[in-house]
């Protein structure tokens, strides 16, 4: 591998094991929603580092801007106004983007070899030069993240700044966050850091504060500290128990190797039937077979 820090442990549409003898640090980004002020500096930093410029949109009466993730906007702040306790309005601001799942549905679904890779350190990255634009990753993702570009038909999403992390830098959004709501480090350190924050939140009356690191996708390398971890849906529809859809698992699981084997078997069965039973010929007409 060119960069040991980006050793690949899983590669889309590849049936053999990529090199995994080394075990670099597993990284994680921690997003502490209780500290986020919604300034969108991280959105700007992402655009700047990754050289992205989305089209200027229109105001629709919310602070969400742009309205949704696109091939040019890999992270967007989603603003939700909720009343968890009646009469007590809370403004929950969630930085949305790829969660870098430990068990990534996008990678599982992708049919193009090497278009999606997962580094040993946990980053799930799209290699657009191998992408064929089928959109299967969108079908596979439980978080509705990948977006197809209208310009080149390839799919884009947050890279967790794999290019920066590879050389020992933190992602651009982390570097720019003015409140410390975004932190980056080893996954173990981030969980420890989150525990401190959660204890603090509980002390301040958020009895259900907790860490969002969903087991259904094997845990994620982007985690949230939530004030209301029992109701992640409050945060602009963050799924409570995300997992790869059973339909996707059925489509991409053992069925396909079995089906491929079945097709091969059918061809072989024909071949051996012919070689043993022989052709089906009409007696009077043997000389005129075609």
């Amino acid at each position, binding site marked *: 591998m060119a960069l040991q820090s980006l050793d690949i442990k899983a590669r889309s549409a590849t049936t053999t094991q990529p090199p995994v003898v080394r075990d670099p640090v597993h990284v994680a980004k921690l997003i502490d929603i209780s500290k986020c002020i919604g300034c969108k500096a991280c959105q700007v930093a992402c655009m700047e580092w990754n050289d992205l410029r989305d089209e200027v949109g229109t105001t629709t009466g919310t602070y969400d801007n742009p309205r949704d993730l696109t091939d040019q906007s890999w992270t967007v702040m989603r603003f939700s106004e909720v009343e968890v306790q009646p009469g007590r309005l809370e403004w929950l601001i969630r930085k949305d983007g790829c969660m870098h799942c430990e068990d990534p549905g996008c990678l599982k679904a992708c049919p193009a070899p090497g278009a999606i890779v997962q580094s040993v350190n946990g980053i799930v990255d799209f290699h657009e030069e191998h992408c064929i*634009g089928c*959109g299967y990753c969108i079908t596979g993702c439980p978080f509705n993240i990948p977006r197809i570009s209208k310009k080149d*038909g390839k799919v884009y999403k947050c890279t967790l700044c794999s290019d920066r992390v590879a050389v020992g830098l933190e992602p651009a959004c982390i570097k720019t966050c003015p409140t410390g709501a975004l932190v980056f480090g080893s996954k173990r350190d981030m969980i420890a850091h989150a525990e401190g924050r959660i204890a603090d939140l509980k002390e301040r009356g958020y009895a259900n504060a907790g860490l969002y690191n969903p087991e259904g996708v094997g845990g994620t390398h982007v985690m949230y500290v939530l004030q209301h971890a029992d109701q992640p849906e409050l945060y602009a529809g963050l799924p409570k128990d995300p997992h790869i859809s059973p*339909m996707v698992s059925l489509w991409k699981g053992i*069925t396909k190797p079995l089906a491929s084997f079945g097709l091969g078997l059918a061809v072989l069965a*024909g071949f051996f039937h012919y070689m043993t039973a022989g052709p089906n*010929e009409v007696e*009077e007409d043997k000389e*005129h077979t*075609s």
Partner: protein
Amino acid sequence: MSELVKRYTARERANHWFVALCFILLAISGLALFHPAFFFLSSLLGGGTWSRILHPFIGVLLAISFFGLAARLWTQNRISDADREWKKRLGDILCNKAGNLPEIGKYNIGQKYLFWTLVVCIAVLLLSGIVIWQPWFTPYFPIVLVRLAVLAHAVAAFLAILAIIIHIYSAIWVKGSIRAMTRGTVSAAWARHHHPAWYKEINKGS
């Protein structure tokens, strides 16, 4: 040369082979995405991206031409009692030792099953294929439907390809069949032996 019997008109043959060519291109480009073991097939259509782009357009051509052909053959593919009797003897037939078979018409029950399998599969492939057609149509459908469609498409494609493997093998196995689609005619002996009721029917007219 012994007596020949007309089985397919030039139009029917052209239609059949157009469907066949489309099907092969679809199977190649589809299987390339189906499992990594087949991805190399995408080179035959100019790479993964070209396979992905071309596949659905060829699919629409196939669906139009297939249903054109199917409409012509529809009524001849109704399953009869003679077919059911014939089916009971399938073991003997496959071992090339069947005599005194029930008199069947233009198609045997295997051919009829193939016909109906393809009618269902191509319909499913067309409908599900439109749902998973990026970037034009997929964004208009809810994700649950897209997931269902991609699964249905893979299952229907598997069944259709399996059916076609059997179809091609049958044509190779039963000598004298291929010329029905290449030349339009079969020998009278072939017709009498394999499709006696059909043979009688066409001779009634003449």
